[in-house]
């Protein structure tokens, strides 16, 4: 009997505590209090840092993997041109020359250096970059074709663009990585390197991290053998990590981007891509 009470007393205590916990847990006031705590926590976090930037969210239909897959309905045969922009640039594929040297008349042409990127779309604006001696970034209204903004970079070419949140990200041939506010067109941050150029790949933004490839600069050219992959905090421009690769890093694709794992995933990805093209890749961390 005495033994039984010894056991039953703590048992009763435990049952009582569990019952109280059950009542408290199921009570709607507790539920509301918990919700308010979670909300307060979320708001504080949001104040510190908003939702991590990603180039997938803001570009409708564009997947993070950047494999040019648009999750849109199959387009019908186009019937009309809904708008046409003004003439935005002059593209000269070749530069011709002619002259006279005494009685000798000469003429000919040589190919010019130019490049362009496929347009990307982000919240009613189309962006593309272009190099025709100088680098340009164009932003057009996707409904009307009206020009929203043109940025010019003297003597430098601009990479493909990435749009995430309120920002446009790009790398340039003069060694800068830039983040520009899409609304005010003010420079949010820029990173300058004198040893690399960053116009060789398309940047990608995932989970608040900007990833882009670089190539070692040799005067105006770049080394095809000496590439890097850079990851930076998309909000601050602070470098998270960098890997060196043999051969120029291809445009990054991001799969299941989880911050600590990202480096490993990207290295693996470079290896896969490099293997695909029959190149040997070495990663250094």
């Amino acid at each position, binding site marked *: 009997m005495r033994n039984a009470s010894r056991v039953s007393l703590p048992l009763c205590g435990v049952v009582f505590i569990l019952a109280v916990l059950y009542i408290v847990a199921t009570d709607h006031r507790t539920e509301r209090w918990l919700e308010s705590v979670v909300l307060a926590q979320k708001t504080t976090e949001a104040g510190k840092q908003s939702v991590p930037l990603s180039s997938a969210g803001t570009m*409708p*239909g564009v997947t993070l*993997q950047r*494999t*040019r*897959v*648009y999750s*849109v*309905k*199959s*387009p*019908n*045969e*186009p*019937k*009309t*041109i*809904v*708008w*046409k*922009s*003004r*003439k*935005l*640039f*002059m*593209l000269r594929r070749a530069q011709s020359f002619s002259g006279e040297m005494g009685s000798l008349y000469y003429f000919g042409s040589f190919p010019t250096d130019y490049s*362009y*990127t*496929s*347009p*990307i*779309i982000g919240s009613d604006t*189309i962006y*593309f970059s272009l190099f025709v001696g100088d680098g340009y970034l*164009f932003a*057009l209204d*996707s409904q009307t*074709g009206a020009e929203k903004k043109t940025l010019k970079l003297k003597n430098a070419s601009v990479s493909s663009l990435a749009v995430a949140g309120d920002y446009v990200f790009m790398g340039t041939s003069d060694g800068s990585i830039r983040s520009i506010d899409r609304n005010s067109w003010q420079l949010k941050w820029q990173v300058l390197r004198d040893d690399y150029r960053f116009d060789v790949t398309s940047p990608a933004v995932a989970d608040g991290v900007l990833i882009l490839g670089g190539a070692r600069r040799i005067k105006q050219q770049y080394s095809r053998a000496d590439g890097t992959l850079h990851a930076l905090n998309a909000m601050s421009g602070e470098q998270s990590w960098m890997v060196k690769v043999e051969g120029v890093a291809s*445009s990054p694709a991001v799969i299941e981007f989880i911050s600590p794992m990202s480096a490993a995933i990207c290295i693996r990805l470079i290896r896969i891509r490099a293997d695909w093209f029959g190149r040997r890749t070495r990663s250094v961390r």
Partner: protein
Amino acid sequence: MRATVALENGVLYCSGRDNSVYAIDTNTGAERWLFETRKVCSTPVIAGSLLCFVSADRFLYAVDATTGQEKWKYKCQNEVLGSPTVTDDTIYLLDEEGYMFGLR
């Protein structure tokens, strides 16, 4: 081959220098289909069940991604630069004369 590849559901789509677009099985490496145009093609993009790309022959092509059958083609005024950008209602293209335009 210089263009970027497009990848979906185990099939890799790419354009080659031989004026063609290929669909390649990523598991076996076997060629699913081949679509030939008269000139070199852009990076293909996947939009719904279609594969869209432009060719230097000034046509915008839409090909069934599974069979490689041509669904439609659209003759552009000038040669198009880069690959098309596709949204639910409009296709955006940039041409070599410096014009950007929306097709519907």
